[in-house]
């Protein structure tokens, strides 16, 4: 009867599942709690941005000025990217007005006040067209893996949780599912349990299907725990009107077939390599590679094809959160992909010898 292997998987692995589910619950309940203080600090920083003014004339030098801070000296950093990750100092001193030659390329400037040993951001300015340099900073392509390629406002609960929860949680849960699905099979190989299992009249196909069903159920439980936690967390900061439970649930449940694809891929690698290290290595690369492919694909239009190679591309939680659109095509497509992968795993497993 179908289900015996599933029951045994839960019986022997319930501690691991429970610990992970608890961590997901902590993450999902806890993350919204960080939103109010973060929003408040961001508002302060945005106010700080108003303290820096920039004058970019048609001809002549650029003038950058800012509100003085008592007893402070100043550092001005320049970068061509709003992320400021490659910023270099262009000024260090006590002046509050500086001029420098204009460049044809858009530039970003961060003004820091140095007070004793502390550095405080006074504000950011740009020669470009971005209305809000901080918003532009958040929406840099290098964060596309976390923002889903959307322009997010971190002043909104949706923007904050998209960046800080949805962008991370699927990688965290995906790696867990990857680990569990690979080791569910390779554990039986390496633990020398295969001979006993296959001395009973269970087919290899049923064995793989039961393992896959277990991982699908685990994925569903993890999603439900995350949904309960996140909905509860949002309610606890009284922002349910801004980010309603239906949207949270729909955005999360859309990830179910994504996790099923990861589980199926993990099982496929497990039956191919029959070794935990190799299987987990390849499956982790599949998950993390998906994140990077999506990010690189967001860098420019010429690289956009890379997105289509990423599993992340087919779970558009941003579409649910910001547009209220659930992409059923992608959802079904991922389901089909998971079944194709598991079918392939069964075919390969049937042909391969079970090593001693």
């Amino acid at each position, binding site marked *: 009867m179908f289900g*015996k292997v599933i029951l045994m998987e839960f019986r*022997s692995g319930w501690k691991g599942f429970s610990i992970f589910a608890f961590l997901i619950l902590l993450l999902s309940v806890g993350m919204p709690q960080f939103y109010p203080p973060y929003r408040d600090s961001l508002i302060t920083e945005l106010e700080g941005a108003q303290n820096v003014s920039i004058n970019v004339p048609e001809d002549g030098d650029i003038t950058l000025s800012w509100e003085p801070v008592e007893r402070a000296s100043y550092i001005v950093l320049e970068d061509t990217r709003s992320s400021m990750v490659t910023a270099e100092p262009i000024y260090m001193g006590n002046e509050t007005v500086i001029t420098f030659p204009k460049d044809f390329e858009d530039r970003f400037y961060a003004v820091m006040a140095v007070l004793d040993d502390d550095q405080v951001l006074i504000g950011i300015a740009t020669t470009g067209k971005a209305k809000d340099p901080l918003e532009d900073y958040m929406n840099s392509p290098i964060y596309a893996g976390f923002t889903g390629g959307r322009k997010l406002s971190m002043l909104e609960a949706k923007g904050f949780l998209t960046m800080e929860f949805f962008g991370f949680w699927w990688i965290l849960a995906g790696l867990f599912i990857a680990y569990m699905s690979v080791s569910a099979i390779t554990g039986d190989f390496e*633990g020398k349990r295969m*001979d*006993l299992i*296959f001395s009973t009249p*269970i087919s290899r196909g049923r064995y793989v299907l039961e393992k896959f069903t277990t991982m699908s159920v685990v994925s569903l439980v993890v999603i439900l725990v995350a949904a309960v936690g996140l909905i509860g967390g949002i309610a606890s900061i009284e922002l349910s009107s801004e980010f309603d439970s239906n949207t949270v649930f729909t955005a999360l449940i859309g990830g179910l077939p994504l996790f099923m694809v990861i589980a199926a891929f993990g099982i496929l690698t497990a039956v191919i390599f029959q070794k935990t290290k190799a299987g987990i290595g390849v499956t982790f690369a599949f998950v993390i590679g998906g994140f990077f492919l999506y990010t690189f694909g967001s860098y420019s239009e010429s690289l956009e094809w890379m997105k289509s190679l990423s599993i992340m591309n087919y779970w558009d939680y941003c579409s649910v959160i910001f547009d209220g659109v659930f992409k059923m095509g992608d959802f079904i497509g991922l389901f089909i992909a998971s079944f194709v992968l598991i079918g392939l795993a069964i075919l390969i497993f049937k042909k391969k*010898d*079970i090593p*001693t």
Partner: protein
Amino acid sequence: MINHIRHNKEEWIDKATQKYQHNSSLDTVIKGGAINRSMEEVIQTEHLTKYYGKVRGIEDFTLTVNKGEIFGFLGPNGSGKTTTIRLCLGLISKTSGDITIFGLDSHKDSVQIRKRVGYVPGDFGLISNIKVKNYLNYLLSLSNCKSDDRMKELAARLDLDLNRKTHELSRGNRQKVGVIQAFMADQDLIILDEPTTGLDPLMQQEFYKILRKEKEKGKTMFMSSHILAEAEAVCDRVAIIKEGRLKIVEEIASLQKKTGKVLDVEFRSPVDVEEFRLPGVSEIKVDNNRLLLTINENLDSVIKAVANHKILNMNLKTYSLEELFLRYYKDTGRGEDNVR
């Protein structure tokens, strides 16, 4: 002196082996298999070959195991015993030849076959941190067997506490779990890969009793072992393999009769060899006060003849099977560790 005796013993073994080979070549055995096909065949292989890439597992194996017999499968580690067993269960696929169990293809019909087969693997692990009875019930449920009565009965016979956790079991107790799970579903064919490994002598005896009782019930058992005394104690027929090839298939009784027993006696004073030239004694060697006799029959008369003298030490061994076995391996030593 000891070296001299050992040398003589090897000579006799060579002779016994040659005699055996003369009387019972593999061809005869295979023909014998053909004659016996009127019996119900449980396992049948025809020119079965398995290679792991370029490494030989077994080669050109033709063998029949009949219903209701305990068939011993002898060979040292790496000779191909486990390969053959795992081919029977469809755990690995053959390179060429045929193998059928209950007339079904071992790979294509593996699930159907395993409905009627119990198996003790040579090396196996258990799911850790659960009770033994839960693990055995899990295997029972996979076999669609609803009753756990047999499991409890076997656990009582082998003195295994079913409430212990699997990770707390000693090597011997883990082996008991393996034995119990093979027999608990009351299967028609039990395949055992070195089943007594780790069992203490008392438990080994209990295990042999279980085997005999199963045989009485008409069950077939296919058992690999490198313990030859074990095969002699419980098997009806044995096969000996060397370097993945089948060398001998013979009934134990017939083999014992052909190879005889060796009586090693040390007397207080020298004895006259002629006294021991009795019917049934095939070889006699004397070294000072020590006498080595190969006895094929008429043991009673020989013992009585020996008893006419003052004896310091005496040893009667039915170890001819082992010696025969060693004969097959002494040419190449054990240089086949690359074979599973």
